[in-house]
């Protein structure tokens, strides 16, 4: 069964090829069948392989499959090879399964779009490359997937390319992530330079045996890889592209910009955890960046009016939690939060897409309202996902994943009270902005009539994801609730367990209660300010602070002034390109010489003969004289 591993990325890729070549000639049913089917079989295979892997684990809890040697240059020979262990299995599962559900959803959601087959071709390519990324045995293949998903992201953000704003958003996403990717490429060059290989397991082994903990080389490499992760995962300071990336269709936002691609940075850091272990400064930076990002993005989400922008900032903020978990050494919890987040955030985006579709492409959530009766399925699933996002105590999966991150940010041996405090505030804000969204969309009076109700395929997707958003949490219970944690046990075959400062299980319960109370308080606050007492919020909207937060804390403004304006300024100064003048002079010179030569071209044969004779005279004279 494990030998079929290569089929998981190969099937969506085949789907992409078929759709790209024949998609234009197929009818929509055929396209949907092919596009959804390829990912569906891939998801089924993942589950079967997963069962096989867990029931009869291979040696060393990992499985390698080399298809062929990609290139072989002076001993450097990366292969097209896949590496399956508990970490990549979980990622592959999340990607293929959530991807499959989103494909089912898109089959209905995009039905009226003229680019139906193009959409599925891109989506299939994305799934193939994303699975390649997480299954890659070496960094080169990983980088191929990494850049490939970036390309798909670009193509899908600008999917409705006839709107210039979408194309700008796509360009912005591509260019900003490129900054991180360049940094990551340099990091990979460093690794090749030192180990002459890009095989991930080999490198991690060599790092732990050859490098010194905290050496500048390890720190530098870790920071360069971190740069790549920051760009892809939209963390501070490269987070500005994600809110604009919402220009793409809602399924794209759900699959790429919530569930999978943006968490590639989390995967990269978890995959190279040994390296970050050897660079404590870099690991601290991961935690700090995660904490700052979750706070800033949370505050920004609080003021947004576009439903998808709220979700985008919320995604940035939740990935901040994952980074925080990784940064304090709670590797497995970061991955756990990734999985749960993939379920509920995909669900939120899909439900939001259904709402937007139902209301004539209305994005502003304050023009919605009262949809509770009109769209009951969407309402209930959205409510479950929101509860999960806000970490509603005990019954939602989000509670189990987020609560433990908050706890470990205090209790881990590299955690600190500051990180704990920030993550706690973040959790509070999360519940406020989440339920602000719920109240605005589904309660109050109806402001826009519903034009189109979601069909069967959309409802099924929403319900399955809602079930996962609730039940997904019970594979991982905190110590205080029995400590039933098969998920972390499974992951500990690949990732080390979190190291605690001391056994403080008595405090843990107290901390959980604090978190739970704050979450409930956040929901109440949202109820007060956004449902009962709207006047106060109206006044708040006029303040400068609100506008500052609305603009994403002014990062776009800052980058415009720090990078764009100087670049434009220099471009304007150098409009005539003075280096070019050298070449212009050369052209001018040859034109001038050409002009002189043209004068000798009289068209008279006798003149030419005379010149030849004069040449003979001069040559002979030189011969005779010398």
């Amino acid at each position: 069964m494990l030998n079929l591993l290569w089929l998981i990325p190969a099937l969506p890729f085949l789907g992409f090829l078929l759709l790209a070549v024949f998609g234009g000639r197929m009818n929509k049913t055929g396209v949907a069948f092919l596009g959804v089917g390829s990912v569906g079989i891939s998801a089924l295979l993942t589950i079967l392989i997963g069962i096989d892997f867990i029931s009869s684990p291979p040696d060393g809890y990992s499985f390698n499959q080399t298809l062929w040697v990609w290139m072989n240059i002076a001993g450097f020979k990366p292969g097209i090879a896949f590496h399956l262990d508990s970490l990549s299995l979980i990622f592959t599962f999340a990607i293929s399964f959530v991807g499959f559900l989103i494909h089912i959803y898109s089959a209905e959601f995009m039905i009226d779009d003229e680019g139906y087959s193009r959409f599925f071709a891109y989506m299939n390519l994305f799934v193939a490359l994303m699975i390649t990324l997480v299954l890659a045995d070496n960094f080169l293949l990983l980088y191929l997937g990494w850049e490939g998903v970036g390309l798909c992201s670009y193509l899908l953000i600008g999917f409705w390319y006839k709107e210039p704003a979408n194309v700008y958003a796509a360009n912005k996403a591509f260019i900003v992530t490129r900054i991180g990717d360049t940094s990551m490429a340099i990091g990979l060059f460093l690794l090749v330079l030192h180990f002459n290989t890009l095989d991930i397991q080999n490198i991690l082994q060599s790092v732990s045996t050859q490098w010194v903990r905290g050496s500048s080389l390890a720190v530098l490499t870790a920071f360069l890889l971190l740069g790549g992760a920051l760009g892809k995962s939209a963390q501070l300071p490269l987070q500005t592209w994600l809110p604009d990336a919402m220009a793409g269709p809602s399924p794209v936002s759900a699959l790429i910009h919530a569930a999978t691609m943006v968490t590639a940075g989390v995967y990269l850091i978890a995959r190279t955890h040994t390296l970050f272990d050897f660079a404590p400064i870099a690991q601290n930076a991961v935690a700090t960046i995660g904490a700052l990002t979750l706070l800033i993005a949370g505050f920004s989400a609080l003021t947004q009016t576009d439903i998808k922008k709220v979700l985008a900032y919320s995604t940035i903020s939740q990935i901040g939690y994952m980074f925080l978990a990784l940064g304090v050494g709670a590797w497995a919890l970061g991955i756990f939060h990734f999985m749960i987040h993939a379920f509920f955030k995909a669900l939120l985006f899909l439900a939001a897409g259904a709402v937007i579709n139902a209301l004539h492409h209305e994005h502003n959530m304050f023009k919605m309202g009262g949809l509770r009766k009109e769209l009951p399925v969407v309402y209930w699933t959205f409510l479950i996902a929101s509860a999960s996002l806000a970490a509603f105590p005990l019954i939602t999966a989000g509670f189990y994943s987020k609560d433990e991150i908050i706890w470990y940010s205090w209790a881990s041996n590299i955690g600190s009270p500051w990180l704990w405090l920030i993550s706690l505030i973040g959790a509070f804000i999360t519940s406020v902005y989440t339920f602000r969204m719920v109240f605005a969309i589904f309660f109050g009076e109806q402001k826009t009539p519903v034009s189109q109700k979601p069909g069967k395929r959309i409802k099924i997707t929403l319900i399955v994801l809602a079930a996962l958003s609730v039940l997904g949490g019970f594979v991982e219970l905190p110590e205080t609730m029995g400590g039933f944690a098969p998920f972390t046990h499974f992951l500990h075959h690949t990732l080390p367990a979190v190291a605690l400062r001391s056994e403080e299980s008595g405090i843990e319960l107290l901390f959980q209660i604090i978190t739970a109370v704050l979450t409930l308080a956040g929901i109440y606050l949202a109820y007060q300010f956004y449902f009962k007492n709207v006047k106060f919020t109206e006044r708040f909207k006029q303040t400068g602070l609100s506008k500052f937060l609305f603009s994403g804390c002014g990062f776009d403004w800052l980058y415009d002034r720090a990078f764009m304006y100087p670049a434009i300024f220099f471009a304007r100064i150098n409009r005539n390109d003075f280096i070019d003048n050298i070449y212009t002079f050369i052209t001018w010179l040859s034109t001038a010489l050409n002009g002189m030569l043209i004068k000798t071209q009289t068209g008279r044969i006798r003149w030419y003969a005379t010149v030849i004779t004069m040449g003979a005279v001069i040559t002979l004279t030189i011969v005779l004289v010398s």
Partner: protein
Amino acid sequence: MLTIFYLSAVVAVVSTMMVITRKEAVHALLYLIVSLLAISIIFFALGAPFIAALEVIIYAGAIMVLFIFVVMMLNLGRESIQQERQLLKPRMWFGPVILTLILIVEFIILFSKIRGQNYHALSISPKVVGVSLFSTYLLGVELSAMLLMAGIVGAYYLGKGKKRIMHRYLANTGSDSKAKGETK
């Protein structure tokens, strides 16, 4: 033999001078034939009887006849002689003659450096020439065959039509407009 050489050399030079000064093409051609015959005798004196024969047969016989044909065909009458007189002004001779004088002086200086190497002029038989031609220089023979072929094809093509050469586009415009008119 030496006297024959010098005599024919003088004849060749004088007749060649006549060639380049004549106004009428046929006169010039006849003088050129005289010059070629004289050179043929020189070849004989140099011990190249085969080349002397070729000079008479091909140069004087074939090539010059070709010239005469063309001149006859063009049928340049008295007007052309008048025209030639206008074209050939005495002051035009000045520059070229100076240039050539310099060249001849330089040649004589060059040749005087190889004086004093005596040799016995022996006749080289056509057989030796033929053996050399068809063994060592076989490739050259093939190439000149190709050249002659190209010359034949080129001359045939150029001489074939008196059709006015027009640009393809210009030639087509007329028929195009006609076609358009028909479709209307």
